[in-house]
């Protein structure tokens, strides 16, 4: 009886894993099929002939290298810039005393309830006046600082003992030096977590780059893919290759760094 239960449990686990992975597996599989093969009946799960032509045409016929560069450049820039800005602010909120600190922090947290969509129309007009629509700067600007990131770093920095900072100060270290050589190394785990969140968030983002980037050559992968998929409705295999190229980088990043990613979700989920 007990054994049957265990078998049933595993059957369920494997079934659910099958359902979650099947679309991703099929995407990879179809991307290797010759054009048109996925649109036959019964739908083949594995390629009958194996081809890389779709990957080749993504780079030759379409502008994939450019989209890849745009996505990578933007995700890396936003991650780098926001990490510096958020970590400085998070540290200041955690370890400095100044008038209005707590009300200000509470106000920031409360404003997280405002959805980004609310800001998009004026932000677009503003960036348009600044002449940065259809530029990298236009996508980077709203990602430079994030309240969630400041919150995450502050929570972590709170656990750093004051005595450590005091000792460094006694040794004559400047404020900036303490931040740079003491706080940042100690905050490494949360900085890694936040980097993954930010990188993936920027890479996967759709609505804002869709609004800001107006030229094909400036598209990020999701924007380009959405556009192409509406034009190339019939080219299933080509679109699957494009989807693989879009998903693969973030999926790999997750698999390598999942420890940090998962722990980040767990702490941010429980702290609320």
């Amino acid at each position, binding site marked *: 009886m007990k054994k049957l239960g265990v078998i049933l449990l595993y059957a*369920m*686990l494997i079934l659910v*894993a099958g359902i*979650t*992975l099947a*679309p*991703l597996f*099929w995407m990879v599989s179809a991307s290797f099929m010759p054009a048109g093969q*996925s*649109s*036959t*009946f019964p*739908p083949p799960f594995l390629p009958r002939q194996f081809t890389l032509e779709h990957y080749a045409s993504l780079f030759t016929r379409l502008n994939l290298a450019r989209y890849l560069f745009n996505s990578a450049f933007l995700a890396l820039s936003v991650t780098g810039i926001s990490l510096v800005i958020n970590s400085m602010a998070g540290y200041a*909120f955690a370890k*400095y*005393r*100044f008038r209005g600190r707590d009300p200000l922090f509470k106000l920031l947290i409360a404003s997280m*309830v*405002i*959805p980004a*969509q609310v800001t*998009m*129309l*004026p*932000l677009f*007009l*503003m960036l*348009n006046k600044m002449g940065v629509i259809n530029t990298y700067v236009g996508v980077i600007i*709203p990602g*430079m*600082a994030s309240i969630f990131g400041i919150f995450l770093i502050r929570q972590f920095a709170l656990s750093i003992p004051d005595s450590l*900072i*005091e000792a460094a100060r006694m040794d004559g270290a400047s*404020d*900036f030096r303490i931040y740079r050589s003491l706080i940042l190394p100690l905050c490494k785990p949360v900085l890694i977590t936040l980097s993954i969140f930010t990188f*993936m968030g920027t890479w*996967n983002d*759709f*609505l804002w780059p869709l*609004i800001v980037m107006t030229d094909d050559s400036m598209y990020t*992968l*999701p*924007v380009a*893919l*959405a556009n192409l998929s*509406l034009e190339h409705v019939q080219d*299933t295999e080509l679109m*699957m290759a*494009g*989807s693989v190229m*879009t*998903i693969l980088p*973030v999926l790999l990043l*997750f698999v390598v760094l*999942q420890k940090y990613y*998962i722990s980040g*979700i767990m702490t941010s*989920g*429980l702290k*609320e």
Partner: protein
Amino acid sequence: MGSKRAAMIFLAPALLAIGVFFVIPVFAAFLLSFTDFDIYSLGNFQYVRFIGVKNYSQLLGDPLFWKALKNTLYFLVAGGPLSVVVSLAAALLVQSRVVRFKGLFRTAYFAPVVTTLVAVAVVWRFVYHPRFGMLNYALSLLGVSPIDWLGDPHWAMPAIILMAVWKNFGYNMIIFIAGLQNIPEELYEAASIDGAGKVQQFTTITLPMLAPTTLFISIITMIGYFQLFAEPYVMTQGGPLNSTLSIVLLMYQQGFRWWNMGYSAALAFVLFAFILAGSLLQSRLQKRLGTS
């Protein structure tokens, strides 16, 4: 500790960026929602006029707005609870004591969360293909006749819900797992000494102990679902017959396709009002759970 000047220097970049590119736009959007800002104003701001609450009253008379609101509520009322139930079930499965390779299953369930929404929406459009799609093929093996998932106004929203749940249940599952790990082991030991069965343990210990987690997950899921956009944009463009038109999609179309930015800003504030209401509800309920 430390000088105030240093604190100000550390804070300045963040506060400046948030102030200029978040706080000001929020207030500007509020003002915008009371103007007739349109494509002509885009060229010259002098054409902008304040029109009071006209955008909001126009909204109330716009059948497209009601359609979008209804669709969005359908999406979150059906999809939200479904996602919560599926993720709780998945968490219980994965955390079950006898299961080995927990990490492997967890990673597999979590994989869709990190994927790019636009890319998986493209994939699912083919999964839902009426003739060559995997889903209809799998269903045909069970004797179900083909369904035109994205082409039938009755099925398009359920199809999007199914995909959205597939995409995000892993995220909620992780939070549930954290919640499960926080339940003291002794509670179960005490209960089993008292002769409580597995089912009884689940209903008297696991579920009540998970109540705050469940509430948290329900609200964040619904807030996220309220911002439905990329799925209909890629899979249906809001069709067929506007059956998958969402609030944010309508906002995007009004604001950035037709440049009716005043009207679009009013839509944004309707979205905000709903999300604010959801958040207030959450903190209210959480306080009640905490005191009882």
